[in-house]
């Protein structure tokens, strides 16, 4: 069956009651994904959403596609097996900061380094929601939670840095409430052949409310964020009066009032093969820097599954499709004849 020409958002909604807390950022992400999928021109039955454990990982139940709600942290591993077995499927992973960066950290980095052709949507709310509010590997130092009553001590992961460090071929960030930006980012991820890693800042209004308010509130966001746009200089600020430039081996924010202009700023190139600058930009955090959103890195490399398929084809080309009978009869054989003699 070919794709119905007119898949709509509704086609991707299930009849299951969505059970996230009212006001959760996950609704916005669900809505964006349901809006983007029909625009991709892919038959619905080709989509598979794979998730781990956590609030974000209930995602597959609310998408009318194939779905697999697996176990904590393991979605990338399940998705890898599925993609290897069925490269023609569109495999998307829904995961969270605890699922992907804590218990599932190993699978995340290895999926990224292999460049498996799956999309990873990491809902980062900097908290454990489903277990009712413990700090996560992306929580800021000093975070007071039920498990860290005196404040957390360990330094957080920067999810984008982790991804870039693995050699990921597509790395992006967006925010739940920026629907237009999120949809564009998802579309860019969908178009990528290798692993597409998208960190989505997501508000948990119950256990970590307003974690990203400093980036999303109307009055502050233009000063707090810098949009990475391919081919454009890193200019930001409500009045577009600041930018990020590369000064020697360091990034710095420059004010145009001080005599700098857009021409002095770093021109964003998401296709740089050297990940060093993307890594530096990923590290930009307040108060010194605006927070980058958009596509940090987009480079083409052969996918894992295409490499496997190519080897299979090559071996079939060299040896022909294997014969089971020949395989069993390989090695040193001898025959016991009915009279007991050996040949």
């Amino acid at each position: 069956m070919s794709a119905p020409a007119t898949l709509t958002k509704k086609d991707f909604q299930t009849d299951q009651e969505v059970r996230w807390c009212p006001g959760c950022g996950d609704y916005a992400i669900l809505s964006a994904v349901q809006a983007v999928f029909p625009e991709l021109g892919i038959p619905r039955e080709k989509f598979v959403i794979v998730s781990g454990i956590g609030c974000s990982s209930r995602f597959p139940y609310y998408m009318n596609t194939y779905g697999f709600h697996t176990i904590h942290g393991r979605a990338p591993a399940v998705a890898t097996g599925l993609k290897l077995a069925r490269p023609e499927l569109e495999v998307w992973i829904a995961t969270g900061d605890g699922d992907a960066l804590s218990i599932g950290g190993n699978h995340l980095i290895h999926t990224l380094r292999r460049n498996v052709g799956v999309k990873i949507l990491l809902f980062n709310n900097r908290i454990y929601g489903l277990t009712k509010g413990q700090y996560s590997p992306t929580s800021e130092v000093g975070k007071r939670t039920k498990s860290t009553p005196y404040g957390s001590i360990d330094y957080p992961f920067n999810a984008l840095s982790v991804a870039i460090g693995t050699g990921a071929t597509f790395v992006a960030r967006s925010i739940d409430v920026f629907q237009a930006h999120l949809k564009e980012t998802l579309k860019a991820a969908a178009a990528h052949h290798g692993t597409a890693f998208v960190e989505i800042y997501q508000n948990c209004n119950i256990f970590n409310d307003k974690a990203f308010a400093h980036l999303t509130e109307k009055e502050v966001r233009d000063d707090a964020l810098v949009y990475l746009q391919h081919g454009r200089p890193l200019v930001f600020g409500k009045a577009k009066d600041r930018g990020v430039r590369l000064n020697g081996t360091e990034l710095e924010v420059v004010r145009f009032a001080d005599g700098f202009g857009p021409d002095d700023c770093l021109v964003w190139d998401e296709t740089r093969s050297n990940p060093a600058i993307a890594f530096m930009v990923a590290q930009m955090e307040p108060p010194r820097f605006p927070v980058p959103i958009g596509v940090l890195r987009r480079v083409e490399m052969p996918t894992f599954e295409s490499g496997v398929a190519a080897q299979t084809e090559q071996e079939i080309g060299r040896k022909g499709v294997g014969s089971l009978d020949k395989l069993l009869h390989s090695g040193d054989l001898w025959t016991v004849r009915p009279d007991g003699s050996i040949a």
Partner: protein
Amino acid sequence: MTLPTVESDNRLSREVEHERLDDVVIRFAGDSGDGMQVTGSQFTNTSALHGNDLATFPDFPAEIRAPAGTLPGVSAFQVRIADYDIHTPGDQPDVLVAMNPAALAVNLQDLKPNGILIVNTDEFEERNLKKAGYAANPLEDRSLESYRVFQVPLATLTRRALEGSELDAKSIERCKNFFALGMAYWLFSRPLEPTLRYLDKKFGARPQLADANAVVMRAGWNYCDITEAFHTRYEVEPARLAPGVYRNITGNAALALGFIAASRKSGLPLFQGAYPITPASDLLHELAQFRHFGVTTFQAEDEIAAICAAIGAAFGGALAITSTSGPGMALKGEAMGLAVMTELPLVVVDIQRGGPSTGLPTKTEQADLLQAIFGRNSEAPMPVIAASSPADCFERAYEACRIAVRHMTPVVLLSDGYLANGSEPWRLPDLGALADLPVEFWSDPEGFAPFRRDPESLARPWAIPGTPGLEHRIGGLEKQDGSGNVSYDAANHERMVHTRAEKVARVARELPPLEVHGEPEGGPLLVLGWGSTAGAITGAVNLARREGLPVSRAHLHHLNPFPANLGAVLDRFDQVLIPELNLGQLALLVQARYPKRVVSFPKVQGKPFFRNEVLAKIRELLGGGSR
């Protein structure tokens, strides 16, 4: 250098005695770097082609190269060849080849009284003697008087044979195992050709190495021929095996072929997720060669990813397996539960080894039985089957796949280090005679529900992504029977727990009944075994019956569920003896399920049972004498 041609008896340079043996056990023992595994394998292969029945027991340390000359560094390969149907690699060697003092120290205790002991005297100098814990040189202190000792300076003779060779000293030294092999070939009247062929193939790119080893092997053969040391050559005639085409095969290689056969027969591509672990890695190495059979092997980042990838592949419609050993299966536990919950077909192969924890990685044990049956959170039933010999691994791999896809369930397949590395002649199966393995993916949206069940097998439909109109979600949360929607309903949960248990229990309906050998109508003693103890038990029971002892045996390949007639079989015997390489795990299960009291006979030394250990126990239980 031209290869020497192969001699036949009439070209011996002197008169020697010929003695016919029905059965002989030879153990090659040396340092891990001495090539004992290759030596043993070559002797095995040559004997297989000669038509002997045989069984092997490679026994090597966990360290790749423990410090040279030390006790922990000793590696051994035992092979038993016979002119009749045998079941074990033998309890005690008739011939021991000891390449150094450590090998002698570790292995001498097993050598039969008056057995042949060939020692490499070159290694018996003070430093090596000390490393092996000898205060005095055993070659000089008469401590070996009860054996027929042949002192041979193997390294010296090897060097002499290769005088003028362009090989460096180290490469020359490395050929000395082939001197020992040549000697063994002379002693047991074996041809050299199979090994010469092997050398050509193995060292095709470096013919000087092939030549050197061939020359040294020939020198070993000549040494026996011309020195007066040996007065007797031994013959072991071909065994009377059932007619057919045979090859020698290890358990891990047989598993690989069984899985490929299941893939072919079902029409499903084979997917293996694995992480390297002893002694299961060879299954990964084997299958990795078979891309042209549509086999995909995935070396994952860890044990958990290995099974999870296999589960993902199963969701996608592949014939999925994951292979590991005990520590790895412990890591896979949660994912096995996911496969139970989502009712996806999957085979989890556990090649058991000594434990707990890292334990004895290269030694054998059967102590993962309870882990296989129960080792998951909550009620997570899985069929568990076990292979009983290296060749049987083929059939069990095939059967595991068949149960998995027929019942839409993960299956545990148990093997162990002894089966994995051990080998025996395998009569190639008639592919047409293999049981059918039909698989049909669900395709009709009409009436589809992810958890509607086949009334007979209770299997749910296998509906794979990409099928229009069947979009559905599965996962680890409890599901409503039928619809597959997430459900926390109390009654539904209880129904689902019972259904999953019943589904596995129904596997028993399709199992062959447990067969009793000996006295099927019942008697005073049944020896009940499972897994790799089959050989030792069969050998012991056969001997005991020859002594007139009224003992019977039965062997379980299916540990969960048990064959339906197990309870009835147990009832027919006064006593039931269960030898197993653990502290009595099958005994525990049997006694939990049936009113029968059993006699547990545990052994946990990282070694298989000796036939005589089981025989002694049988004699003890039956009053020690013949009827």
